[in-house]
């Protein structure tokens, strides 16, 4: 009788990559739900488009690379990239935006670098930057929350406007952007930025209907939903608490200091935390294991760097929101961060003492 030979350990905790990716995608669901309810169903159509594109692109490239397609499609990493990009772009952007973006993310950013685990940059964020730079108009046409919209949008309208640029009743996207009072509305961050640029003070700007309490109308709930999903991931030990805490913490501290120094021109920490994509980025995007720092100390540095970059770009840069840029820049710094934040090995003296 012959027995099977195997290498130790013979036991495994049975948590696979596919499992982890699936958990992360599932944790996005509360955020997606809130987004769909408050901002319309566009996001769901974008999700479908993105996932289909991602699977096709992934399968195509894997086939070209001569790799087994099915096991790698099953690891859910392409799915997660698609989900993250779909919820990051404006929900009513034309269909080809998400298709180009997802295909770029999977083919160029991920597979051309060697596939899962080898990409230097976060695929979703690299694709986002590509889209933002290449198609600035389409990528900034965010619709106001449904409650502020002049026209009611049905799910069918969402489909029509994504595929034909016009809703079923014939409104164009820029017409839809106009609010009840006829003023074109952008995202809260955009609005604030424009207002401050025109010389208004922070308080004056925050009185607009697009703002609710200390954050943007609707955006507060979206961020809270992603926060809940993120906390669930930490509780499930899918992600480490270090990166989200460092992102949020550094953004909070920096904006707190800045708002004290310049209360009329720089929004407070709560505004920054609950506007734009802060929670989504902090819990779901910055924590992408492949492109993030891998050491515990390094994760704190990496997160803090993202917070700093977001603070700088939002307040002093040329773009209203900045997570895509911040994450990509921090990705570039990861090898350096990892090198200098290696933990002290058991029985070894700290590196600082060695020199």
């Amino acid at each position: 009788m012959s027995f099977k030979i195997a290498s130790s350990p013979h036991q495994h905790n049975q948590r696979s990559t596919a499992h982890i990716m699936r958990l992360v995608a599932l944790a996005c669901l509360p955020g997606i739900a809130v987004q769909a309810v408050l901002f319309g169903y566009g996001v769901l159509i974008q999700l479908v488009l993105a996932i289909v594109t991602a699977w096709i692109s992934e399968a195509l490239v894997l086939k070209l690379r001569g790799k087994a397609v099915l096991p790698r499609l099953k690891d859910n990493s392409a799915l997660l990239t698609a989900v993250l990009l779909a919820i990051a772009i404006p929900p009513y952007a034309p269909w080809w935006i998400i298709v180009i973006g997802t295909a770029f993310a999977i083919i160029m950013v991920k597979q051309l670098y060697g596939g899962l685990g080898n990409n230097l940059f976060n695929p979703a964020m690299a694709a986002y930057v590509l889209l933002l730079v290449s198609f600035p108009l389409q990528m900034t046409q965010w619709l106001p929350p449904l409650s502020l919209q002049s026209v009611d949008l049905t799910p069918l309208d969402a489909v029509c406007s994504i595929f034909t640029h016009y809703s079923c009743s014939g409104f164009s996207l820029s017409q839809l952007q106009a609010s009840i009072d006829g003023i074109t509305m952008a995202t809260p961050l955009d609005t604030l930025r424009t207002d401050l640029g025109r010389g208004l003070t922070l308080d004056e700007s925050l009185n607009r209907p697009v703002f609710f309490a200390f954050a943007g109308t609707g955006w507060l709930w979206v961020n809270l939903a992603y926060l809940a999903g993120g906390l669930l991931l930490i509780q499930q030990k899918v992600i480490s608490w270090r990166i989200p805490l460092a992102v949020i913490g550094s953004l909070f501290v920096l904006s707190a200091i800045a708002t004290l120094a310049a209360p009329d021109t720089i929004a407070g920490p709560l505004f920054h935390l609950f506007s734009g994509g802060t929670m989504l980025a902090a819990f779901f995007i910055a924590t992408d294991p492949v492109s993030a720092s891998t050491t515990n100390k390094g994760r704190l540095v990496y997160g803090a760097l993202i917070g700093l970059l977001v603070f700088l770009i939002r307040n002093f840069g040329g773009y209203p929101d900045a997570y895509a840029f911040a994450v990509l820049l921090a990705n570039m710094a990861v090898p350096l961060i990892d090198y200098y934040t290696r933990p002290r090995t058991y029985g070894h003296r700290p590196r600082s003492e060695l020199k």
Partner: protein
Amino acid sequence: MPGLFQQIQAGKLWDFHGGIHPPGRKEQTNQKPIAVLPIPDRLYLPLRQHIGVAGQLLVRVGERVLKGQQLTSAENSMAVPVHAPTSGTVLSITPHTSPHPSALPELTLVLEPDGLDEWRQREPLNFLTCDNMTLLSRIQDSGIAGMGGAGFPTHIKAGLTQPVDYLIINAVECEPYISADDLLMQEAATTIVKGIDILCRLLNPKAVLIGIEDDKPIAAAAMMAACSQREHYYVRIVPTKYPSGGEKQLIQLLTNKEVPNGRRPADIGIVMQNVGTAFAIAQAVLDDHPLLSRIVTVAGDTLNQPQNVLALLGTPVSALLDACGFQSQPQQRVIMGGPMMGFTLPDLSVPVVKTTNCILAPTAQELPAASTEMDCIRCSACADACPASLLPQQLLWYSKAKDSDKLQEYNLADCIECGACAYVCPSEIPLVQYYRVAKADIREQQREALKAEQAKARFEARNARLEQEKQERLQRNQQLAAARQQQQLASGANTAVADALARIKAKQALAAPAEERSKEQILAERELKKQQAREHQQQKAQQQKAEQQATEQHNEPAEQTPAVTENTNSKAAAVAAAIARAQAKKAAQAAEQHATEQQVTPAPNTEKSHQAEVSAEADPRKAAIAAAIARAKAKQQAQTEHETNAAPATASTANKPAAGSDIVAATEDPRKAAVAAALARAKAKKQASAEATEQTAASTTGAPEPDVAVTEDPRKAAIAAAIARAKARKQADSENS
């Protein structure tokens, strides 16, 4: 802030980095009593069951041995003996599958028990009255080596001379399934404590810390009760976490100390012994019961009755599994050791040894086999789990790249191969396996580097030695020369030296013109010689004509003429010499030809080559072999004949300078003549050997068509031989295919 000792006394525990919480599954076995196995039919006792060297065999095949009788001796300090676990006969001493991950055969003594279980003479010791040396040699002679898994000889750790602060008794048993130590403590706590007493007498520590995981409450209670009379014995309940039972991890847990890299626990005043080892020490010293058996957890869902058994060392694993109702499944794995660090067995004849704490036969549902290895997603779950605070994913990266410098920079050597990283890896990468391979590669590289270094050192030492010897020789010669000079000076033989110098000068003066002349006139002389030869030929032709006319008158003109001319004038002498040379050459050639004929022609006549010829048609391979044999023989013959030929050849060539114009020099200085003769001889030899090689080439034709080759021309013969060979090969190929 209280000192460390106060903190330890107060029961403070620390933590180590990482670790995992795999399902324990100890309830399969930890509630049942230890079963005693019947004596098996055969016992397989590997001569080395510990880390170190095997002892010298003390018994012979066929000898009857008693229970507890030493089978090997322990002369070396790193050797511990093995004993006969029961009385019986030594059947054989042969290599047998070893209880090692490699399963490489190792020298194993096979014992056939006689069922009597007859003890040898036993001499219990009173450890309170005997000295440390007696205790230590008893521990060594009883064959005790670390029973936690490493198998380090216990007497070395117990005989440390360094001061010891803490003696840690490792009863953590953190691997899933295993409950052997648990059961031992439940059933024999008092004996264990006696063993600890003996260790304390040897090491004299400040405190004894007994570490037990909190999933063994009964064992912990038993140990606490047994220790209640000892003031400085502390039973410490540590939280269940793998690998708390690792030596370094337990030290950190109990004392917050780290063993500095490259050092041993003893260097920080700590000695750790396994609880099973303490028990074995007590048995050895108090009962003179050497290490003959051990408790083994036999677990897994393929067993009807998973339980702990007391098994004699050498019991094959199959006997253990059978006793527990083993039902094999397809793709069955049988693991020796725990699920985290154990190794799979290729077959069940592998015996239980001193370090075997568990035999695991799980079902595929229980411990699913590893699925396909996927790409690393850099999640660093491995780094979070690593008890040594390493960065396993970086190590994986560099292992794959075979970057040994980086691997060393990232402290691969500090990996304890606990498997926590691979346990948590979502991509199911067999990380530990990668590290084992990388470690082996690095060891190999270091060995190579060391070897190269040693070779270099050896080379340099040799050079230095040769240089020194040269210098010494030179010095000695100088000294001797000086001494001689002095002696000569002392004897007043100045004149002798002057005479010698004068003699040398004179000789040089004489030699110089001769040399000059030979250089300038050699060409002219050669020309002259040629002319003489031509004249001589004419003369000869005329003479031959004359001979034809009158043959009766002149019987031997050729021989007479040189003799006469030599006497009369130099011209005639040269002619005679040339004739003699030519004749000698001819004779030599004839002899050689004759030799080659002898070499080759008789070859086919011999029986063997005849056979070869016959078989060549049947089988070209055989023919080739026969040809090779024939060739070899021919070569030998040729060599012997050449040696005999060489002598006349040299003789004839030696005549050349002697008879030629150098005759003056030759007569003047017999030495020069000798040198010339030697040169000529060497030339002749060369020629002969060149010819001989051609001849041997010719003789290779041997089997197929030997006769054609020889007679005409050695070159042609060689070509013919090559063709014949090629043909034979072709034939062989075609027949083979």
